[in-house]
């Protein structure tokens, strides 16, 4: 028990003293997950709009695939990206393995189905009367589509935040493709795994506290967005 309390004391000391190593790890984590999220959003939201507005063969199958991929095991994604980027793999010439870029790719793959699937759900949940109202006011088909996406914005943002929560807490994929190299590819979750193995609990605990704080901030933001999105829901 005393070792746990001591671990927490040292952890808070690291946080309060703005430990350089700690800050570096946090910064890299946010940079990798944030970039992955931007990539997933840039591809995921337009895809969700396409799935929401266009009719094409096998559309239902694509949606089922996306929904299934929301639960992709990170280690499996890590394995596939590793095989693609390894020296003997098809993209080995890019020399991206064990770099933050490889980690961003892996996390983008994990975040993409979450962003696109939840955005698609949000778009198709918009009341069809919005489409008709937009058309009756003289909107072009493109303007009508944009209006529907805008009406779905709170659901889309919920999807983006859910994806951010998933990639920030993910360890399997980035450990495989990033290699957990100190000062280069070491992020919060991989550090926690490594330091726990080594018995260095203070840094692991400090990062755990920060990770939980980030999760709390993300969930609070999600709650606020959902609350804002249901303004007037009684009507």
């Amino acid at each position, binding site marked *: 028990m005393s070792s746990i309390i001591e671990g927490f004391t040292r952890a808070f000391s690291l946080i309060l003293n703005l430990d350089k190593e700690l800050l570096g790890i946090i910064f890299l984590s946010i940079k990798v997950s944030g970039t992955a999220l931007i990539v997933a959003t840039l591809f995921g939201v337009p895809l969700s709009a396409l799935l929401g507005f266009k009719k094409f063969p096998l559309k239902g199958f694509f949606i089922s695939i996306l929904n299934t991929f929301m639960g992709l095991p990170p280690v499996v994604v890590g394995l596939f990206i590793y095989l693609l980027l390894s020296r003997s793999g098809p993209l080995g010439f890019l020399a991206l393995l064990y770099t933050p870029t490889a980690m961003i790719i892996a996390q983008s793959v994990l975040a993409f189905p979450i962003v696109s699937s939840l955005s698609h759900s949000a778009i198709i949940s918009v009341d069809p*009367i*919005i489409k008709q*109202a*937009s*058309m009756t006011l003289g909107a*072009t088909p493109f303007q009508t589509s944009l209006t529907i996406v805008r009406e779905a914005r709170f659901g889309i943002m919920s999807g983006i935040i859910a994806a951010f929560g998933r990639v920030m807490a993910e360890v399997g994929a980035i450990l495989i493709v990033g290699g957990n190299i100190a000062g280069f590819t070491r992020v919060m979750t991989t550090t926690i795994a490594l330091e726990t193995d080594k018995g260095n609990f203070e840094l692991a605990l400090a990062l755990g506290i920060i990770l939980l704080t980030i999760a709390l901030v993300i969930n609070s933001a999600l709650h606020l967005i959902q609350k804002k999105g249901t303004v007037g829901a009684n*009507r």
Partner: protein
Amino acid sequence: MKIGLAASNIWKSYNGNQVLKNCSFSFNDDGVYVLTGSNGCGKSTFFRICALIELPDRGDISYFSDGEIMQKNLELKRRITLLLPKVGVFNTTVFKNIAYGLTIRGIKRAESEERINKVLEFVQLGHKINQNALTLSSGETQRLGIARALVIEPEILFLDEPTASIDQKNTEIIEDIILKMKNYHKATVIMTTHDMQQARRLAGYLLVMNEGQISAA
């Protein structure tokens, strides 16, 4: 130049249920046309077809101006508008809801603001300008719908059951708005109602839809 409408021999069915049967109607005079008929007789279907947001199974809708038939393009669609019985309110402020039709037409903000303020006063919603439109009452929502349609200054305004499911006070406000519309910007108003007394109060031209066809009352 004012535009007129000619609907010729319109047929429309849904799932084998024939709603419109060889329905024809035309006008080229501004004023208030009121189309009455029982619920489910095809008034709303006819309006959606006239407003060019739905196609008939057979028959033709033609708009004409100065004796010439107009092409059914975006330019024409922006000269007419339809207010649906359930107003599709955007999840934003009253101001932005009303600005929608102006924004998609690329109208500059200064002109938009002037037109929006004017129309808000007209429908008595000036005090709600910054409120989220989803929090308005049913009657206010209906007035918002009218304001959103009026601000784009349509030449033909279709109002589908504009006072259905709202209280007496709001019904009176909306009837007053409809009566003043002609003077507001000289739009032709074509509305539906199943309230015969209301139809008589408002109509310049009273029409009846029965078994999928329109006739003068």
